[in-house]
């Protein structure tokens, strides 16, 4: 199970990094989104992969790690998802504005000189 998820993380991260290095703005934005999936999953996995663990406490109970999934990485990732969305939106708008100003969608704002 761990192997599947870590391979998944690796492939998604690799695809993201590949796209980050591409010259077109849209590629970079897709790449960043992929990379953030991979990183979110990785942070999530640091709490250990537990299928079937309870996520919600019973009333009047102090939970222990033996019964419940680790909530801390989850809280971190939840925040990261929302912030990731916000930055993706910002990046998209900046890229569109740059495209409007420069007329090109190259990441440098101008086509590569040759």
């Amino acid at each position, binding site marked *: 199970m761990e192997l599947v*998820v870590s391979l998944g993380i690796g492939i998604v991260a690799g*695809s993201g990094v590949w796209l980050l290095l591409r010259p077109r703005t849209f590629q970079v934005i897709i790449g960043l989104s*992929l990379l953030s999936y991979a990183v979110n999953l990785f942070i999530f996995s640091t709490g250990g992969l537990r299928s079937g663990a309870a996520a919600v406490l019973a009333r009047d109970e102090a939970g222990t790690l033996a019964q419940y999934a680790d909530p801390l990485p989850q809280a971190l990732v939840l925040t990261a998802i929302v912030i990731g969305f916000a930055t993706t939106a910002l990046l998209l708008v900046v890229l569109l504005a740059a*495209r409007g100003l420069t007329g090109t969608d190259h990441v440098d704002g101008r086509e590569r000189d040759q």
Partner: protein
Amino acid sequence: MPDGIVLACLVGLPFVAAIVAGLLPTRARDTASMLAGAVALVCLGLVWSAYGTVSGGGVLRAELPWMPQLGLSIVLRMDGFAWLFAGLITGIGALVVLYARYYMSAEDPVPRFFSFLLAFMGAMTGLVLSGHLVQLALFWELTSFLSFLLIGYWHHTAAARDGARMALTITATGGLSLFAGVLVLGHIVGSYDLDVVLAAGDTIRDHPLYIVALILIVLGALTKSAQFPFHFWLPHAMAAPTPVSAYLHSATLVKAGVFLLARLWPVMAGTDAWAWTVGLAGLITMLIGAYIAIFQNDLKGLLAYSTISHLGLITLLLGLKSELALIAAIFHTMNHAAFKCSLFMAAGIIDHETGTRDIRRLSGLNGPMPFTARLALVAAAAMAGVPLLNGFISKEMFFAEALSATAPVHPLLNVLPLAAMLASAFSVVYSLRFIHGVFFGSPPTDLPRTPHEPATWMRFPVEILVLTCIMVGVLPAATVGPYLDIAARAVLGDATPYYSLAVWHGVNLPLLMSVVAMAAGVTIYLILQRRLREGMDGPPLIRHLDAQRLFERAMVTLSWRLARTLERIAGTRRLQPQLRLILIAAIVAGAGAAFVRGVGPGNLVPAPIDPVLALLWVVGAACALGAAWQAKFHRLAATILLGGVGLVVCVTFVWFSAPDLALTQLTVEIVTTVLLLLGLRWLPKRMQSSSAREPEVLGRTRRLRDLAIATAAGGCMAMLAYVVMTRTPPELLAQHFLARAYLEGGGTNVVNVILVDFRGFDTLGEIFVVGVVALTTFALLRRFRPAADSVELPEQQRDQLEADEARHARDDGRHVADWLLVPFTLTRLLFPVMLVAAAFLLLRGHDLPGGGFSAGMVVAIAIILQYIVGGTEWTEDRLSLLRPPAWIGTGLLLAAGTGVAAWAFGLPFMTSYFSYADLPVLGKVPMASALIFDIGVFVLVVGATLLMLIALAHQSVRGRRSTPRTLPQAKASPRVADAVGGGG
């Protein structure tokens, strides 16, 4: 009065007054100077009120803990030594304010001047009263900074700007060095508290880091006190208004260096290293400064170099291994402040009344300005060390020390008395030049202004200072004796030796040296007089040793040439090489760390592979690779594939017991996709073409290289993830959160309780970020201009419009509306359902998966669905409440208000409260204050998400309206623009 109030007022009052003075109207010269004078006098009174305590050897102390765990507190502490300096700063400050009132022209923005001057007074008082090393360094830098502002007061002149910049560069760099030094010192002692440090002399001197601390601290002191080789900033600082020169650059600021050396003298001095660094710097500075001063043609330049020389003398005294030398240093610091300050003021009067400071042009001013001439004469005589004046007594003490001190190497001892005499002779020469050149000789001719006596009150501060010089010179023990004693005892404690303050000690060697130096000085002046009158181009012999030029060359090399070279070698304006470098560095750093530390197999046995999950991830991996493959030419496909990866991630969260994450991921996924789809329209068409502009080989090499980087990054991530997952997770805060979520936070959904309660402050920051991002996108899009090739309507829309056109009976846009009729009806029916679902998610968030984030996203999706199928006009006609910026503001206010409300109950910010209310019908409902916070999050998320989506979506409408159209247009509603505030 309690200590705390006295000390806090001493430091705080000038700063408060500085702000007030800064707010006065530009021409309010009298008000500003009255304010400054009153503050200086009040502070002087406060200092005097502490006399009773410090004269008995007591210490005033006030402490305000700031970060006590780190040993950081605000400590104000006034012993006798600090008391003396505080008196000097406030007393001379009051005189300088009076002088400045008459010196400053009514045309200048005088309130600004007094504002800076007051702030400087506060910083300087703070510096001498600091009982904490870090705080001392802070005030130290503050004085440098305010000195920069004051030197650059007449910022319209290039000399002022250059002088200010040079002074700041040198003294602030020294200040950083001092900061590093006190950190080392604090590390050695284990505390930054001055009392503790002063009690740890042996520990400090025996510590291996002693030499490091010494060099760093001495660097700070030498730069501040304009000691060789950092002396050259002081003459350039003379571009400041003369009151500033009199106050900062003779009496106070430059004394900060010697203050610090004397302050740390008991714990750091006494070693050979100290004697070499401090003593040698002082010796060289004393000689060079005095020598150069002789050949200055500018009155203030002469005084500046003379100041450098006298500071060198004080530094040299501090460098000697003798308690008596320390006392002489303190004494000379006071004397120098008195006579140099009055001389600067006299020079300012001459400049003010004649219009020039050039000694070669001035002469015979004794006629028109007899009073000023006499005052200057006495002050200059004190500077030269003439008997019956204060300078004489401290000079005698210096000679005595020069004869008796122990030095690290013997030959230095033979040099010392000679050097002392030489410097003393030089000081006679330049004092003579000052007096004889300016006040005697033929009557003045050809001056910019006709000289006359200044206003009485402008001369008054000079009179006071000169009177002090005489009184101390005649009756030292009766006038200054007690104060010097207080200061000396505060530094030396029980080690204070016996010393005698008297004019006459009988015929002894120091007196003989004085006589010889005087005679030598007069002789040298007589020889040089003619040539000096004609003007000499800089001091002979060391004319080419121009430290300023070296400094400027160093600055050019550092800040210009080196930077340019580095930029040429390592800089690029292209993004890809930068990202490549960053990625490679990250991979190397990560892999390197793993390689060096070694990674063994984990302790957990991997769970058996579930075929469903494996299959799911085959799909996920294929989607990711496909997105990477297609993102260049098939953006829509890439967006869909990206969504595929997102869904797989979402299912993975569910699989591994994280329902909250899955919920958030799912909703965010939808919104992100809509956002990307909206953006697609503005990107250029890209067709796969074979017309490559570069050789195919180059492109292929680049792609292969990037593929290698991507593979390495992905491989490293996979390995890292696997290694982490097969180990028992560390016992961090999870247990803490799990145990307390219900008992102390009142919620069973631990993740939500963490977000809105335990780490509510983080979430507050986060929603601020989301709000700011939304407003930023909105602002960016307000001025959005599409690229030329994206202006036209997209192909698809043109087709639809043509279809409408073909059937004349139809309005524009019917074509689409007809096609979307079924989804349109469905989404309308779905809208209330989604709102209820969102409310449900929001309310149950504290106990069950849900919460403000996901609920907000659901509402945003519900509304955006209406936009997509119903069209902008239709939706905005019906949802007039849709004002996203207002939602953002409300959300932030609600969330922050919940946090602030805790203050009303006397609890810290963001403390939460909860209980369960038993409501009819609904049953037991959690009533945590965190719920209100979560509602704030919800409202903000709705507003921010909608603002981003709508602002982007509206560009299509705007684009059509603002460009010349060739095709029949859909009517654009003005409400559209109003709703999101966009301009047309």
